[in-house]
């Protein structure tokens, strides 16, 4: 069985073991998921700091990384975002909202046939650039971004 590569996220050293244990049904979900949450990256106050914390200090713009989001969000509390990478050997994708208090929203590692294609819904406090960062197996980072106009506060409720 392939190892799920926890490239963007911390706790990489433990992952191979964990995935094996998980596949074998040895662990309860709490134990499986109790790897280290990347507190530094998620609590970073701006996108450069957050990107640095996931190891993506430099990332090249790429047309092959597609970020789909509405031009105007009807409600900032629920902004649908879809990211798919056409870059060969993409192993992880992370999403940042520049103007959110903590820009990093989510990071995903893909393995065992999972395509680098994810859809999700984000909260956006205000109009902002939404940014996707993809990492390839050889450790290169690529980015794509799009501005989403928000009509009402999502984080304030």
């Amino acid at each position: 069985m392939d190892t799920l590569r926890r490239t963007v996220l911390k706790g990489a050293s433990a992952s191979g073991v964990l995935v094996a244990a998980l596949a074998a049904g040895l662990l309860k979900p709490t134990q499986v998921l109790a790897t280290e949450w990347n507190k530094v990256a998620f609590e970073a106050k701006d996108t450069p700091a957050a990107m640095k914390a996931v190891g993506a200090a430099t990332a090249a713009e790429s047309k092959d990384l597609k970020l789909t989001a509405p031009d105007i969000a009807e409600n900032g509390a629920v902004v649908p975002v879809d990211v798919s990478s056409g870059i060969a050997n993409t192993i992880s994708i992370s999403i940042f909202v520049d103007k959110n208090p903590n820009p990093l929203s989510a990071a995903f590692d893909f393995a065992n046939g999972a395509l680098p294609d994810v859809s999700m819904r984000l909260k956006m406090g205000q109009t902002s650039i939404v940014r996707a960062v993809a990492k390839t197996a050889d450790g290169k980072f690529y980015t794509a971004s799009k501005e989403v106009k928000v009509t009402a506060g999502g984080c304030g409720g």
Partner: protein
Amino acid sequence: MRQALIAATAFALALATQPVVAQNKPAPAATAKKAAKPAAAAPVEEKDAATVEFEKFRTMMEESNPAELFEAQGEDFWKSIRGPKQVSLATSCDLGLGVGIVKGAYVQMPRYFADAGKVMDAERRIVWCMIEKQGFKEADIMKQPFASGSYTPEPTSLVTYVAANSKDMKFAVPLKDPRVKEVYEIGREVTNHRAGPYDFSCNTCHGADGKRIRMQNLPNIATPKGATTAVMGWPGYRMTGGVMLTQQWRMGDCFRQQRFPQPKYVSDTITSLLTYMTANANGATYKGPGIKR
């Protein structure tokens, strides 16, 4: 009112992103000669651009509607043995088509229930069953009838489950039943009733075609088209606050904006309004629980 304001901001933003359209707008000086009417016409076209974007967005949302979570919860409540009398609704509650039958029940309510001696809408019937069949205390249910934060009342989940089981079916409120017709006529009178400090009735906003408050379009509930718009998508998952809300809530919040006092939960007044509106939508296809801004 807040909704209207938010929609307003949305529209302003929409304009900001549409330089071509905005620049083509007739200059105020030009509209002056033709009096005020043409000035009102331009923004209606521009609003459509924002509306189109919102509709695209709404379609994306409907693909995976969190309302399904509440539907699943409601199904669990419906089938489980619960309450002081230790009985399930599935084996005790008649929604009009026979005990336990859920399929198609929602689009045929409000209807008359002989055991209660009343015309009831779906949520009211569910609450009635919870009290009469399962032995829940009315006062407990009345304490917090609407979702707030992470709290979702049981009748809300139940009505979401029941409504989902009428998806793609046609509204068919049994108006031939004179008891239902009577409540329908009373409901029509409720929509006409002007009162309160602002002299508003339901019809002040919802009694004519093509009106809006700020950018919020107002369906005319007297017409089949308007009534269909009004009843479609309820119960609905509200993106603001991330809560599931029902028609009972919607009616109450309309009265709040009308500057009226608060209508009691599952009261005759709400049933009469839902009878009037849903029957006016008879024949239209119900699309299931919706998603609201």
